[in-house]
């Protein structure tokens, strides 16, 4: 059984004067509702041109038939360094949720309830470069034409 762990540390000596902030959390990524580890992953690095919305990762129907509405995880980092005003709008389907600035990363669970719950990204400011990793147990390959 594969083991995938994700750890976060958030710290600040001066956000709350008199009370230094230190948050640490660990989790082992498993299949939905059980302790069995995830078995599939998909990683990549892409340079993406500004002004276009892109789908990142699979559609729900590109995951095993009835198993898509479960436990998937996305790590996404904007590795752009040329200009710190560059960012990527990210969201679910047509709804943008936040801005991933140059150098920033994010880590979220994603349940991909249907094909209208895909992850979308739209670069702003110029060509952005991203690196990403999906962790899942239900990706399927597209049937060849």
């Amino acid at each position, binding site marked *: 059984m*594969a*083991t*995938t*762990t*994700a*750890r*976060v*540390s*958030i710290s*600040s*000596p*001066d*956000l*709350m004067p008199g009370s230094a*902030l230190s*948050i640490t*959390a*660990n*989790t*082992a*990524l*498993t299949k*939905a*509702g*059980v*302790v069995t*580890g*995830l*078995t*599939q*992953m998909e990683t990549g690095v892409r340079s993406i041109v500004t002004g276009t919305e892109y789908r990142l990762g699979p559609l729900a129907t590109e995951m095993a038939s009835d198993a898509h*509405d*479960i*436990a998937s995880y996305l*790590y996404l*980092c904007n590795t752009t360094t040329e200009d*710190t*005003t560059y960012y990527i709008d*990210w*969201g*679910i389907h047509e*709804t943008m*949720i*936040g*801005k991933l*600035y140059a*150098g*920033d*990363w*994010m*880590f*979220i*669970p*994603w*349940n991909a*309830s249907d094909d*209208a*719950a895909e992850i979308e990204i739209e670069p702003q400011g110029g060509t952005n470069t991203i690196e990403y*990793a999906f*962790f899942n147990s239900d990706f399927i390959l597209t049937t060849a034409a």
Partner: protein
Amino acid sequence: MATINASVTINSDISSYPTSISKTMTMTKSANPSVGLDETTGLRTKKFTTTTAAVIVEHDELTDDKAHKVYIRNASTQRANFFYVAYNASAAAAGTAETIGKLYGGDWMLMPYDGNVNITVASSTASETQYLEYMVFADGIVAAKG
């Protein structure tokens, strides 16, 4: 100006060559990416005993269209239970178009958030108590309305 650093480490042996991701970011403002975020709504812990959806981040407390960051952790230990997490005005549920994902017991998430719509959650169970920890690192907080 405050300094807030966030680091992620992901290790996996799913593939035959080990995956190891390690990245650190400093949370900065949208208008000036060289200036650190310096506001927060504070670290909160909330107990959930029903499946009723609840707003955990009210967008009207935050400046719209900014570089906020939201940290959320399901502090429960049961992997069988989870919270739906959604970017939605009033509810979080499986069928909500803006549902982001399911945060299982022990899972955490950290995401950029524009502050334009509420963040809502719903527990998957009413038979077991679940706890949620969350914190907003804000790029602008609107003064409380009287």
